């Protein structure tokens, strides 16, 4: 599912001198070779390499909290942003960034989205975390209680009476929600 952006940025690297790569190992053991400027968008990686003097180019950094699937999503985003930065250092093409981001999350299910939020949180990529949590908010906006429960995977621990009372008390809050 690699996008045109991700693939073009890797092909472009062949034309310049050999780019430095950083190896990142996900929870399920897959090793990703990531171009340095892309990997450095992951704050946890940046500080790992900044703080440890004994790491070399051969060091494989383990990321036990990130699955391979989430890593693909994270890298797609970071590579696209690196490509934007490289193309137009003087002025970020905002509408293009927005168009990319919209297309990028459109393809993600709720479950994939949450997995990426956890990964972005762990890897400490604040820009991506802000963006993804904003998307999550959009998805539950004006939705029914049942939808929100399912979205977060929260168990309903109210007794039926309690819930009925609560809904009666806050009746107006339950008027006019969107279809799930």
């Amino acid at each position, binding site marked *: 599912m690699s996008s*045109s*952006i991700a693939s*073009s940025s890797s*092909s*472009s690297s062949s*034309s310049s001198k050999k780019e430095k790569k950083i190896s990142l190992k996900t929870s399920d053991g897959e090793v990703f070779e990531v171009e340095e400027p892309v990997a450095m968008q992951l704050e946890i990686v940046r500080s790992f390499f900044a703080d440890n003097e004994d790491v070399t180019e051969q060091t494989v950094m383990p990321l036990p909290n990130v*699955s391979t699937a989430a890593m693909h999503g994270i890298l797609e985003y970071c590579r*696209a942003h690196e*490509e*934007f930065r490289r*193309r*137009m250092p*003087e*002025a970020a*093409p905002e*509408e*293009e960034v927005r*168009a*990319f981001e919209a*297309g990028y999350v*459109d*393809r993600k*299910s*709720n*479950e*994939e*989205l*949450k*997995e990426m*939020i*956890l990964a972005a*949180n762990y890897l400490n990529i604040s820009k991506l975390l802000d963006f993804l*949590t904003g998307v999550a*908010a*959009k*998805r539950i*906006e*004006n*939705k029914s*209680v*049942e939808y*929100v*429960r*399912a*979205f*977060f*995977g*929260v*168990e*309903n*621990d*109210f007794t039926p009476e309690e819930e009925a009372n*609560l809904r009666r008390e*806050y009746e*107006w*809050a*339950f008027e*006019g929600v*969107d279809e*799930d």
Partner: protein
Amino acid sequence: MAVTPKNPKIPVTSIDDDEGDRLSSLPEPIIHYIFSFLETIDVTRASAVSRKWRNLWVSMPYLKFDIHTIWSKPLERWSIHTVIDKFKDFVNWVLMCQNGSIDIEKFRLRCLNFSDDDHTLQRWLSVVARRNVRQLDLELISHTPIQLPQCLVTCQSLVSLKLNFEDKHCVVKLPMYPGFSSLKSLDLKMIEFSDSNLLGNFISSCPVIENVNVEFCIFGDSKSLEISSTSLKNLIVDSSDMRDPNCDGLANCEVKIACPSLVAFKFLTSSTWKFSFQDLNSLKDASVDIYFHPEHGTAEEYHCAMIKILEGLHNVQLLTLSSGFLRFLDLAVAKPEGFSTSFYNLKSLSVRVLVHWYNQVEPLINLLNLSPNLEALTILIDWVEWSECWEIPEEVTCSANHLKSVHLLDFGGSENELELVRFLLKKGQVLEKLSITWLRGTEYRRKIIREIKRFPTSSSHVAFSFFVSRKNTPHLLFRL
């Protein structure tokens, strides 16, 4: 518009099987963070999700009320009066029941300013001021002037204030006495000032103000707008697109800017060209988009105005100019003594150019010659139907000693554009990168690319990149 999941993998109704340790159940701080983006009604509704969430909304420091989206299709259900009453009721109830000891991080309100004798808005503002609100974002429709209540002016926690009157300009009475002691950001949109001195005085009186954004505001028949502040870092004044055709924003008043800490400055206007800049020694990034209206002045006057503006901006590192500028810069070529300012610090220049006349391109070359340290040049190509075909004479010089990157946007591959590319490739001795973003619908792209590749280059290595038209998901077509 809500983003709907295309391919939801979680079953919406049942979540109880094998979910002992769901990989993706989100930790509480993240859930709170997600809720901070939501309207207060959504947070309130979430109290029925589970016991743990029951009182989440009571301590939520982000309050957002929007009468337009609080219920879906409200006017199919209720009359407008009922909707307004229900909305007021809801806001009142939340402010009453929330834990008053929790400071409000952000209060966003989008509603109508009710009738003349209705003090609801003032009351809400006094409640949030008492709860140490930090960011206040008001989007209102009002037919009567609005006065900021004193409790807000003296509110020491307020860091950011946004006032936007969506459809109709509204008179806002700014306070005459000092206040807003912590205010850093001020956003004003669609506001009518009876006297532009009010705004100038107001900005000067905010001791720590850093960002000011004034969009589509009317300054009445004032003669000048004077903004002077020692703390101001970012300033945007945009009166380019006045939605009301009967008003012209700055209305030809003189704009005086004296801000020694100003770093970024953006000015868009079609209604004035009288500027005076003082003490802009920290300025790094300037963007000026001025439309010179033929009725407002003579070419000679515009030429002088433009020179004055450029002289005021001579320290900048990033400069963005509209094509209106280049139209009058060519007069400087005829009278070289009239313009001698150099842009020694300028690293990045972005200009909009009408390529159909050489007298738009000549001033661009002139500008390059005045910018000896320029590294990046972005040219937005403007189009008109008809075009004369020109060539840049052989004897024209261009000092592009540091120019590394050239980007042409909306490139259609006409003879004139190719001539400009040929010239830049010939003069750019250290050019590393030439990027072209195609104009939508440009044909024969391969042929154009072949032609560009055949141009002689002075630099030993130029990387060419071609990008598809803007307003699309970016997509790299070729790399040569």
